[in-house]
């Protein structure tokens, strides 16, 4: 009797969550970019509009870009009506997404604190709380004692360099497990018959008579009636293939996790002034995000002094982190707009749709933008929630300036 090969006693490979089909030569809709937004768009095209002749083309592996690199924070406490509209739409979808996808997303509504460290921060925060309430977004103003009740490990002593003077609090905010979100959406889209095609780089966009007619890819040409771009950091490069210029700058954005720790951090804490945002993953890592590196780059890595600054900021707020060790750091490429709001909708090229400019905060919008972009593609008409985010706003001047609520921290 021959010896059993190594691994023969291991259980079978679990069921695959999606097929890996070869691309057809033609689809009704081609989505470029198999990250969270592309997968969500595919999911809602099938669910809400019955459009399943769809391919999602991904240059690398599914959800291996920013979907694998974000800090998983979900919230909707943005200042302006347009932003509250789309982010609250997303948050409402998050609240039913686990059930809808029948997949565990570890969606945890543990709340978010946005700290105020100066009188101007206090005024801005209170204004944002009122604006949120008018838009039906849950929001409260907390004084330092209430901040300590929500998150006892924050240093609220008055003698720190940036004392905590209060915070806005959105109890329905939280975190979710980013990989599970991508896998759940991918499984759902695949089950609807949508082709998820990995290792397929788009190298050109076919435009005939002012209308998008397909894409050229590393796996050959693929014709399409409609083409949607969901490529985050590479949006400028892709749009240029169709002759569309975008007001974007692509920057590295870094984050890090600590080693696994006992649960110490019950919520999500963000501070624009001290420049850090922190939560604790279910597994136990402290997850911290930094600001962007100053210069544009496509390198998916950043400089270590940014990480050092970020850890100094975290220690200022959380002295208890002093003995935690960094487990790993990484970077993604984020596409930043001049007003820190996304660009969604139609383009000067007929049947070519944009979804970009989410900068440092695209993860939280995943289901919201999926549903809104799917609507925009299905009707060739921007969803009402997408209208304020049209590319033309940079010409008309109708900006959605979310720098105060969004520029640093997401």
């Amino acid at each position: 009797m021959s010896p059993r090969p190594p691994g023969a006693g291991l259980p079978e490979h679990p069921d695959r969550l999606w097929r890996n089909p070869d691309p057809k030569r033609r689809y009704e809709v081609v989505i470029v970019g198999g990250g969270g937004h592309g997968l969500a768009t595919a999911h809602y095209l099938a669910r809400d509009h019955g459009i399943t002749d769809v391919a999602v083309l991904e240059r690398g592996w599914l959800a291996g870009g920013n979907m694998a690199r974000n800090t998983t924070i979900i919230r909707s406490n943005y200042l302006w009506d347009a932003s509250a509209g789309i982010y609250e739409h997303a948050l409402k979808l998050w609240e039913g997404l686990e059930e809808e996808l029948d997949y565990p997303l570890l969606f945890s509504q543990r709340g978010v604190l946005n700290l105020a460290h100066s009188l101007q921060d206090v005024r801005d925060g209170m204004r944002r709380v009122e604006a949120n309430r008018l838009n039906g977004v849950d929001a409260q103003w907390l004084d330092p004692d209430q901040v300590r009740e929500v998150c006892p490990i924050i240093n609220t002593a008055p003698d720190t360099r940036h004392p905590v003077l209060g915070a806005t609090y959105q109890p329905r905010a939280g975190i979710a497990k980013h990989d599970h979100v991508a896998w759940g959406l991918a499984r759902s889209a695949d089950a609807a018959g949508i082709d998820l095609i990995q290792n397929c780089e788009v190298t050109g966009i076919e435009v005939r008579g002012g209308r998008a007619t397909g894409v050229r890819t590393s796996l050959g040409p693929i014709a399409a009636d409609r083409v949607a771009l969901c490529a985050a950091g590479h949006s400028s490069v892709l749009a240029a293939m169709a002759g569309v210029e975008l007001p974007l700058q692509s920057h590295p954005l870094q984050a890090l996790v600590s080693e696994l720790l006992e649960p110490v951090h019950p919520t999500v804490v963000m501070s624009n002034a001290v420049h850090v945002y922190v939560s604790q993953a279910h597994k136990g890592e402290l997850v911290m995000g930094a600001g962007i590196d100053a210069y544009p780059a496509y390198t998916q890595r950043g400089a270590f002094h940014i990480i050092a600054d970020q850890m100094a900021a975290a220690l200022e707020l959380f002295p208890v982190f002093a003995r935690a060790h960094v487990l790993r750091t990484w970077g993604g490429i984020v596409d930043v707009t001049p007003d820190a709001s996304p660009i969604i909708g139609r383009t000067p090229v007929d049947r070519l749709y944009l979804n970009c400019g989410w900068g440092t905060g695209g993860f939280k919008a995943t289901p919201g933008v999926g549903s809104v972009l799917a609507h925009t593609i299905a009707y060739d008409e921007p969803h009402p929630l997408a209208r304020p985010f049209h590319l033309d706003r940079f010409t008309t001047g109708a900006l959605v300036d979310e720098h105060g609520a969004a520029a640093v921290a997401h």
Partner: protein
Amino acid sequence: MLLIPCPWCGPRDEAEFGYGGQAHVPYPQDPAALSDREWARYLFFRDNPKGPHAERWCHSAGCRRWFNAVRNTATNEVLAVYRVGEPRPVTG
């Protein structure tokens, strides 16, 4: 951390420098004459190439002088540095 060759001081750590955006973007000669589209282009649209990019840097913690650099945004390799007012050099 990038190592950036200041044209006056030689190679120094990135932390000594400030990034100043795309180079060779002149203020419009007659701003009032621009259309909304042209003004938007000047105000909001900048190159965002994956590859060589001409950009301004200031050696703010060194000689405090501005200069231009051509940097490959895909690799962070600095291909050339040159002084303000000089044309963008041809890089390979």
